[in-house]
């Protein structure tokens, strides 16, 4: 006795053998892999390397500015001290 369910499934199996991926399917997959979310263009490790390099440059710049500011400030204070010593009134003995 024939089984209509089995026969229909078999017919659909044969008919669906003609399913083929879209013409650009492979290209789409490779584009997805190369996108920043999942591919090799932006890797988490690369991101942190760039970030830490930028951070280092920023910190070095701030340190240089602070050093310069302190140096100028201490120079001004020294000049003031020298100036005030010159300004000390002579004691009349």
């Amino acid at each position, binding site marked *: 006795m024939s089984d*209509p369910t*089995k026969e229909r499934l078999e017919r659909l199996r044969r008919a669906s053998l003609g399913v083929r991926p*879209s013409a650009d*399917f492979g290209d789409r997959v490779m584009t997805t*892999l190369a996108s920043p979310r999942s*591919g090799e263009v932006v890797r988490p490790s690369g991101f942190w390397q760039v970030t830490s390099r930028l951070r280092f440059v920023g910190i070095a710049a701030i340190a240089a500015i602070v050093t310069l500011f302190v140096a100028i400030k201490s120079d001004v204070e020294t000049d003031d001290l020298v100036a005030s010593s010159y300004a000390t009134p002579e004691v009349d003995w």
Partner: protein
Amino acid sequence: MTQLPLDLDDAVSRVKRGDISAFRLIVDATSERLVRLSSRMMGDQTEGEDIVQEAYVKAYEALTNDRFDGRSSIATWLYRVVANGCIDAMRSRARRPKAVDVHENAVVAPSTVDARLALEELDGWLNELPPEQRAALVLQAVEGLSSREIGEILDLTEGAVEQRLVRARAALRERRSAS
């Protein structure tokens, strides 16, 4: 049957070493069968291709992060990921109505007209079956896998697979006699 006769070990090694272009060899060697599998399971080629694409992204990440253990071939592993991806997609489709694809006519699908009609018929016919029953039925009757192979893919015992197949066929017979 699930062991696809493909030797992609060299491509796998190259991808693991960071050669993204070698992944194209894996895609070209496996996409036809995987898209056919997912399209048959989903009854829709556009949804089928989306699921296969996600499977490739997972595979690429697994290879480049050294998470692919190599116990089975990459082709067999992909087959399993796609089959389970289809079940997940069917479950979420059951929770919301099927999305209408506005680009449907724009897709350049070289599938034959017969094949596209067959997918539509499969989708309409198996639509009311629960995802696990539908998956088991397609894997057995359309993909030609044994109950043991289906059990390995769906992480079920052979008995559990048989049970789903019996229920699926009974539901289809019942619908047929009711109509």
